[in-house]
């Protein structure tokens, strides 16, 4: 049993409109409290934008501009430059977007901000599809997962955004999970202390989008980590990989069986997913090196 001990200064309020049992709200609470009050936020159209609240209400005590879907990182850059012009270099700029706004339509703006190494903290809530519009595939949707636009399962693999970002040689990239909240808080706090572009990808099992039981989102997120599907890693300067959590304590079936989006899989499909996982794990291990980088 892990004791959850992240700080909470009530920067995220109850009464928001996330689905009951949604772990994005949980992750948001940890992140918003970890960044602290001296922060200006940008949010792309996404579940996060809905959770933050409709005008004139807000579920957070820090200011957000609700920008456009494809320009989250560009908007964050604009906020940062304005703060610099105002003589406020230490104010954190927090940028929130979904995987659609990050892997797909917002990738160009994110790549540009990363290339300029803009001093922003970019959080991607990765629920592996356009869940806010009812559940269509994005380029983050994994192989075989059923969505509204891939009813028989997606035919291609999830885009590897970490490697894309690493190729930009930005100072900090990490993955995090709502099943490991202390790790999430620690990564946010660490990122806050680094100047330049920081990106944290947080896995968000979507209750309706993935077909997960209302009480099982945390469990599903934990299984993703423990089955090795979503290893918790850090990449500094684009080249130094370290794996903070990937116990591989669970078989992949333990993860897949919690979700309706995989209910159509055959044994052959599952076998192929297992093989792919082994291959990806091999690549990641080589990147991290074999010298005890794994937790």
């Amino acid at each position, binding site marked *: 049993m892990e004791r959850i001990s992240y700080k909470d200064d009530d920067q995220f309020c109850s009464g928001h409109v996330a689905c009951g049992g949604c772990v994005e709200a949980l992750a948001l609470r940890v992140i918003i409290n970890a960044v602290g009050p001296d922060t200006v936020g940008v949010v792309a159209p996404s579940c996060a934008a809905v959770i933050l609240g409709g005008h004139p209400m807000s579920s957070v005590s820090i200011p957000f501009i*609700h920008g456009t879907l494809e320009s989250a990182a560009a908007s964050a850059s*604009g906020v940062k430059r304005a703060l610099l012009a105002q003589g406020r270099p230490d104010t954190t700029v927090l940028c929130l977007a979904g995987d659609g706004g990050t892997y797909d339509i917002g990738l160009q703006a994110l790549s540009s901000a990363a290339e300029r190494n803009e001093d922003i903290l970019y959080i991607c809530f990765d629920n592996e599809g356009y869940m806010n519009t009812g559940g269509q595939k994005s380029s983050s949707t994994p192989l075989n997962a059923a969505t509204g636009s891939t009813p028989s399962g997606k035919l291609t693999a999830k885009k590897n955004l970490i490697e894309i970002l690493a190729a930009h040689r930005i100072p900090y990239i990490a993955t995090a999970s709502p099943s490991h909240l202390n790790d999430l808080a620690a990564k946010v706090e660490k990122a806050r202390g680094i100047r330049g572009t920081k990106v944290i990808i947080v896995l968000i099992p979507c209750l309706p989008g993935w077909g997960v039981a209302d009480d099982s989102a945390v469990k599903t997120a934990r299984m993703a980590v423990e089955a090795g599907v979503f290893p918790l890693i850090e990449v500094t300067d684009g080249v130094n990989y370290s794996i903070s959590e990937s116990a591989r304590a669970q078989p992949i079936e333990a993860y897949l069986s919690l979700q309706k989006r995989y209910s159509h899989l055959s044994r052959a499909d599952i076998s192929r997913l297992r093989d792919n996982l082994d291959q990806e794990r091999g690549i990641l291990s080589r990147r991290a090196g074999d010298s005890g980088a794994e937790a």
Partner: protein
Amino acid sequence: MNAMSQTQGLQLLNGNHAVALGVMLARPDVVPLYPITPQTPIFEKLIDLSEKGQLVTELLTPESEHSAMASAIAASATGVRVFTATSSQGLLLMHELLHYAAGARTPIVLFNVNRTPAAPWGFWPDQIDSLSQRDTGWIQLYSETPQESLDSVIQAFRIAEQVKLPVMINHDAFYVSHAMEPVAVPTQDQVDSFLPPYRPEMYLSPETGCSISAPLDQKSWNLSRRQMAQAMAGVGDLVGSVGQDWGRLTGRGYGPIEQYRTEGAELVFVTMGSMCGTVREAVDALRGDGIRAGLLKIRLFRPLPEAALRAALAHVPCAIVLDRNYSPGMGGVLHQELKSALFGMSGPPRLHGLLAGVGGVSVSCATLRKLAAEYLLAAPSPDPVWVE
């Protein structure tokens, strides 16, 4: 001391470099820029001024005009003065965010160099790029000369920041953007006395925690447009008073429209941008020929100064609208706007809509004299006429 002696004297500048000097004097805090022909000399001059330390600003050079405008909006919403510049394809790529900037009430000043949009590809003066953005909520000014472009940039910040609406200033590709003429460059002290620092009452700040542009209900969205309408309603007068203030300071006054030799006119050309220069020459020649011709130059296109246009054309029997743009299936945009502005007017002029200079084709003084003779007494046609 006369106005002229308060300036640094005349400099030989092309339109784009005049714009860049105007921007420098306006002291913007953040300038996101993406290069595009024929805007590039604005871009390069601003970079040069920044390198030399004459322009102190946060220059941001993202991967597209779309990101440039997104950055501009976010920076403006954070409470600082923002400038950007583009042309044609770049402006069209910004389209989504032009709506956003106006709706978010961010007083950005954008300079657009009017250029033909693809397809087919072309790099020629044509105003359809900006005219097709008329419903986005931006104030639009059209400039005839490098001097007017410089002066308008500085005035635009005062207009934008007072009504909390973005301003787009336009001048024609090459005819103005790259043509050189002597320009009076005001001093920094003059501009500082005219344009105070931008101090908005509301902006993104950790101290207030207030968010911007969050989703809202139908009634509130509707209210946002009513508030924009209210702001727009005051723009015509404001453009006039700001232009007069500038005139007191520099000797060069401006208004929403300009009338050239329209007294007792039997024929008035109505147009915008660089075409006005040729029309002035044609008007002088026609007056010499005994035809009482005049020019009604529209400087403020959005909001269209309808009352001023009606007053200017009140006793004019014939008006010829020259459109350097074409809205397929409709005609010239300015012609349509004029028809709308004059609707219900008693004794309106016979209004002719001529598609002159579409795609950057040259319209000479001789052509205009010929058109005047042809249309002076002709019955107006509701359909647009292509000028050969």
